[in-house]
């Protein structure tokens, strides 16, 4: 029997690491007053493909139900949770979730996530809490060599508001910014607007780096109230992270949204040693507009598979084997309870002694069981 490309059976360390990542996530979020939520793995496609969520149907695992409606395996947590939270009492502000998402454009199709969503909370408090939850969680996982990147959708929106672009031209410009394709950014902007904005957008492609980048742009945009407000907001978050000892905080003023529902701050965490993205998220108030709700909402999702791959599991528990028999099995089972912190296995015929730190044998003498160490 064969497995589809990207799928794999999993045993041992990877599963232990993933369980540990989920367990620590549960503890961290419970300690920070998050309430757990879960949504069904099967949803209607329209939950994710409507104009507010804007996801591509082609990347979802889908089928027609008996009524001819398209159903999908959950491709995204945030959108599903937004649907679910509309029916929840607004007094609960902080939510956490964990489970799989399914996308046909990703190797293996299934990926494991854990994340948080914060609603009805003032902008800075919600965003800070998201980021500090991430810092707390990575700290508990003992993952220390990471980088947090901050971006903001408002910068691109504000600069392009001065250009007379059609929706498709704006999308092309957004894609060119997303790919940091300077020549095309300039070309689109100059054809449809004025040179000053074209130059500004082109320079923005390279506007990423330490917090100094914000300071440079504070000077450049000193007369632009909206942009200055965005920079102030980003700087506040960056300083907060630095004060909490985050090893590397990076800002990318040229970052644009990759999902249509982002509207404001965007953040992402990278593992420095291998470049993997370990979490991403941001503000998405607009996602709730589909439910005629005006809600402040921000969240982030951790890639549990990436985190699990970076965990160091130190198995310092002693491994003991008790060699018993059908008759002495009950005695051996009682004996097992006397080893508090050890991994204890019971076998009748031990073939591979090397796998254990200690081997004990139950033997019968004068109608009594006795334990001897091999």
């Amino acid at each position: 029997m064969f497995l589809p490309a990207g799928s794999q059976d999993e045993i041992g360390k990877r599963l232990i690491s993933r369980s540990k990542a989920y367990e620590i996530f549960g503890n961290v979020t419970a300690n920070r007053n998050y309430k757990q939520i879960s949504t069904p793995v099967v949803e209607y496609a329209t939950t994710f493909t409507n104009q507010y969520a804007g996801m591509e149907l082609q990347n979802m695992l889908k089928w027609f139900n008996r009524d001819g409606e398209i159903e999908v395996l959950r491709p995204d947590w945030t959108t599903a949770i937004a649907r679910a939270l509309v029916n929840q009492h607004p007094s609960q502000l902080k939510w956490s979730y964990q489970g799989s998402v399914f996308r046909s454009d990703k190797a293996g199709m299934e990926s494991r996530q854990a994340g948080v969503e914060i609603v009805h909370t003032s902008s800075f408090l919600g965003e800070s809490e998201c980021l500090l939850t991430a810092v707390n969680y990575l700290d508990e996982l003992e993952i220390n060599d990471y980088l947090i990147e901050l971006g903001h959708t408002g910068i691109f929106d504000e600069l392009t508001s001065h250009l007379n672009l059609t929706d498709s031209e704006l999308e092309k410009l957004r894609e060119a910014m997303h790919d940091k394709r300077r020549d095309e950014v300039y070309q689109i902007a100059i054809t449809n607007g004025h040179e000053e904005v074209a130059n500004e957008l082109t320079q923005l492609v390279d506007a990423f780096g330490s917090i100094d980048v914000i300071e440079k742009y504070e000077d450049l945009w000193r007369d632009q109230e909206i942009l200055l407000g965005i920079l102030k907001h980003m700087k506040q978050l960056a300083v907060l992270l630095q004060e909490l000892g985050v090893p590397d905080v990076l800002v990318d003023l040229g970052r644009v949204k990759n999902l249509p529902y982002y509207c404001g701050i965007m953040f992402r965490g990278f593992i420095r040693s291998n470049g993997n993205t370990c979490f991403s998220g941001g503000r998405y108030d607009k996602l709730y507009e589909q439910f005629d709700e005006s809600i402040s909402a921000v969240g982030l999702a951790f890639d549990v598979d990436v985190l699990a791959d970076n965990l160091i599991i130190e198995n310092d528990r002693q491994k003991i084997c008790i060699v018993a028999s059908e008759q002495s099995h009950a005695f051996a089972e009682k004996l097992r309870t006397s080893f508090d912190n050890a991994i204890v296995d019971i076998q009748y015929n031990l073939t591979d002694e090397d796998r254990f730190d200690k081997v004990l044998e139950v033997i019968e003498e004068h109608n009594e069981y006795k334990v001897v160490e091999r």
Partner: protein
Amino acid sequence: MKPCIALTKGRIEKQFLEFFQSLNYDIEPLINKGRKLRVETDDFQFVFAKGVDVTTYVEHGIADLGIVGEDILAEFQPDVYNLLPLPFGNCRMALAVEEGKEWPERKRCIASKYTNITKAFFKEKGESVDIVKLEGSVELAPILGLADGIVDIVETGNTLKENGLIVKESFMEFSARCIANRSSLKIKRDLLAPVIEALQKGVAVK
């Protein structure tokens, strides 16, 4: 740690090395590399691969930067930063047909290595076509009756001419490009910024 650059083997490799040398980088170990596919200089690690594999190595973060034809990027749409055009590898994408042969008034069949580009091109025109995927010598397809036309890159047009084909429509212009891994550009920014800046300056001079 040295930046790793993936280079497209063949003509792009040769043109890039000339360009790189003009920016005062030492390319001596690369010229005499023989059949080695991985070469280290004082400043960089280089790997040599086919164009589409260059994008794969960069996308997966094995290489930090890549030098690749834009036709490959347009066809395969890898998830990488597409930083800047380089002053070589210029060509265009064209629909070519057999000279003197009538363009049929039925659903047409097009042969190409670039099936995604071909599909997008005819979709934009609002025309349904059948596409036959070929791996090379695409010019043969109309001559041997496999297809009504081809979509392929054209540099000078000599290959088309020698095989009795003419350009019916040109629709994209390409050059070689420098691409970057999305994480590397951020995490190794101090390491990569000088070389990207040097490439940019070199492009501006040309």
